[in-house]
């Protein structure tokens, strides 16, 4: 069974980013508990060539919680094949009094219950707000 069947792939990715983000900022839960809700214990995430495992993901929750960025997600395209998803998104972020947008291209593998097992990401920070292109906004 595909983890993307319930909501469709675009909404799945938007919900994944936002729910994870909101859980970190809105709850006082232990970071490890939140990371484990959205990732497998052996997760490997490689973003722009930088490898992050569970321990690094947990460590990264500290600056996120301190700086409390706002996040809006646009998913432009998402394609699935079994447990795999490929998606092109734009993350609109306000962080430490700066507003910027990041184009994100992800190839990911997820468990049936929607946790990330593996992801390869490429990102490109945009110099300014991009023109409106709203397929899925969350």
């Amino acid at each position, binding site marked *: 069974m595909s983890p993307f069947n319930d909501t469709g792939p675009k909404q799945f990715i938007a919900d994944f980013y936002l729910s994870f983000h909101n859980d970190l900022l809105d709850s006082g839960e232990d970071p490890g508990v939140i990371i484990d809700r959205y990732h497998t214990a052996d997760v490997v995430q490689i*973003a*722009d060539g*930088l*490898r*992050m495992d569970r321990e*690094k*993901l947990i*460590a*990264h*929750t*500290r*600056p*996120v*919680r*301190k*700086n409390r960025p706002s996040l809006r997600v646009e998913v432009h395209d998402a394609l699935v094949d079994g447990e795999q998803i490929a998606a092109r998104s734009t993350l609109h972020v306000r*962080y*430490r009094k700066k507003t910027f947008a990041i184009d994100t291209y992800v190839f990911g593998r997820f468990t049936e219950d929607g946790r990330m097992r593996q992801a390869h990401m490429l*990102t490109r*920070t945009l110099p300014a707000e991009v023109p409106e292109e709203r397929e899925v906004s969350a």
Partner: protein
Amino acid sequence: MTESSYSVSGMACGHCADFITEELEQLAGVTAVAVDVECDTVTVTSDRDLDIADVRAAVEEAGYELITAHG
């Protein structure tokens, strides 16, 4: 010139490097900051000896944690 390296946890991307660099560059005497995200290392070049408490405060202001100073 003095060059000191520190282990910093929580960095994940180029934005993390930028935020830490911004804070450290505000310390008096700092002339350069080099961040190696993959190795969790920050190297600070300064024209005077830096107080570890000031470096730690700058790193924590950015949201990160200074683990050790390597001298």
